[in-house]
């Protein structure tokens, strides 16, 4: 019975004039279209609300604490010292350190995997890297604390809980992202390009450097940016291993080997203790705004880099 009905509908639809949609089709389309629209609008609304909330809770600080004090070098809320500089520097140090470690390591690993490693090594390493990406950051932080920190202390640092320890843990977190996305980008470069380069008399390394890497560069930039993005966002692991000292590090060659505290870690550590509406509370939100601005800047920079690369690639300049 059902089958007959279905057949009837179909044949009627085919025989009739092509007037567009049946009643049922129109209704369904209307529903789907508006559901998607509603979802999109509420996403925008939620982001807007979050931003509004951040501003409402964070901006009052600017009236309560003089700008000069916010730019001070001591973060010591109990004594009403709200210098943000050490936290910003802590974040910068840890992130920059992790990028310096993770990017070269990640890219070379990806090049090895896609261009040099025999198939059986790829078969083992690829899934292994995906598994590494799935380890929760708190576990990595714990490992950094019990294993990495003592190691770094034994190398001569006064304490093992330093910016460098944080950089290592973050680099480790960013690596799977960087490796697997850039490996995909390299693997997607057609074999014909490599053959073309080799057939002219290029060595394998020249073919990789001058053709494959250039062809894959938009993907490689994406990989690095996503890797950095992951590193910046991590709070808990870093909180465990950087020593959590909101001091100005002493500038010098050993700057990475001093305890620091990042912006994210500060928010996470202190949010539970502040009374709502206090100056301290507002300042923590100001840090949130600052983070938001930094992340936004990095993302749009990445977007522009990738967009620019895409255009230059289309014009053949890469």
């Amino acid at each position: 019975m059902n089958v007959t009905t279905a057949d009837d509908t179909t044949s009627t639809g085919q025989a009739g004039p092509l007037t567009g949609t049946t009643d049922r089709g129109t209704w369904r389309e209307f529903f789907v279209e508006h559901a998607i629209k509603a979802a999109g609008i509420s996403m925008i609304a939620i982001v807007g609300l979050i931003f509004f909330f951040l501003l409402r809770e964070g901006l009052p600080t600017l009236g309560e604490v003089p700008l000069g004090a916010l730019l001070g070098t001591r973060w010591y809320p109990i004594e009403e010292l709200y210098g943000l500089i050490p936290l910003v520097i802590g974040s910068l140090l840890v992130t920059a350190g992790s990028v310096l470690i993770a990017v070269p390591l990640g890219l070379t690993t990806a090049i090895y995997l896609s261009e040099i490693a025999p198939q059986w090594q790829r078969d083992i390493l690829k899934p292994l890297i995906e598994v590494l990406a799935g380890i929760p950051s708190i576990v990595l932080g714990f490992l950094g604390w019990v294993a990495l920190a003592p190691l770094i202390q034994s190398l001569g640092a006064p304490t093992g809980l330093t910016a460098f320890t944080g950089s290592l843990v973050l680099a480790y977190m960013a690596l799977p992202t960087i490796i697997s996305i850039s490996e995909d980008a390299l693997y997607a470069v057609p074999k014909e390009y490599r053959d073309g380069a080799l057939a002219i008399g290029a060595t394998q390394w020249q073919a990789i450097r001058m053709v494959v890497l250039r062809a894959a560069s938009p993907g490689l930039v994406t990989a690095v940016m996503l890797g950095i993005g992951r590193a910046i966002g991590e709070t808990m692991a870093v909180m465990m291993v950087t020593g959590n000292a909101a001091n100005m590090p002493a500038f010098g060659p050993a700057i990475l080997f001093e305890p620091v505290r990042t912006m994210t870690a500060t928010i996470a550590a202190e949010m539970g203790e502040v009374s709502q509406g206090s100056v301290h509370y507002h300042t923590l939100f100001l840090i949130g705004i600052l983070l938001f601005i930094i992340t936004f800047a990095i993302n749009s920079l990445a977007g522009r880099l990738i967009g620019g690369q895409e255009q230059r690639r289309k014009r053949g300049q890469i």
Partner: protein
Amino acid sequence: MADIIEVRNFTFFYGSFRAIRELNLSIRANQITALIGPSGCGKSTFLRSLNRMNDTIRGTHVQGEVLLDGQNIYAPEVDVTELRQRVGMVFQRPNPFPQSIYDNVAFGPRVLGMDRTQNLETIVRESLEKAVLWDEVKDHLRTSALDLSPGQQQRLCIARTIAVRPEVILMDEPCSALDPVATLRIEDLMRELARDYTIVIVTHNMQQAARASDWTGFFWLGELVEFRETADLFSNPREALTEAYISGRRG
């Protein structure tokens, strides 16, 4: 006329599969040699053996010799990159790099360090002129090679190959991705190039072999059945197999 390449008792294996068997053949300098035969008979494999492009495929090995100007290219002391500079290759599908027209042609001179002793722009210009592409691209050398038509891309690949001044140019069905007009332009170009270079071309197109080559070799199941001057092979094949193949395909 001198032989530039001499192939002696050449056998080629993919793993344990023997794709070419006991092949003997001489290729004349400054002539166009066409290789024909049904798909899978080993034409590409043989062509790629002449500049050792098959080295990039794991598990292959060879027996016998391929002499280039009297030197066995499979001898252990041979530098493969130098061999490939001397014996260049144009592929079935045009494969310009996703870079500018200029950078494509300059690629070879750069990797071989030719730009240290010679003017790179001159090399690029001369190569594009020889490939009869210069007039079409001279005003936009910095734009992407991928914006060219397939026929132009293939001529760009030829320019890229001759930029390193090879002796031999191998072409593996270079027109199979092109329309008839672009195909004829490449054939004219081959004639021009044969003054300075030796050309070996694989083609599935019998008219092309008949039109464009001086010598033709007919491959069948990994063996070279017949190898003669093109006019003779097509008008008066010696082997029944050749006869059947060329008449079957013509009709």
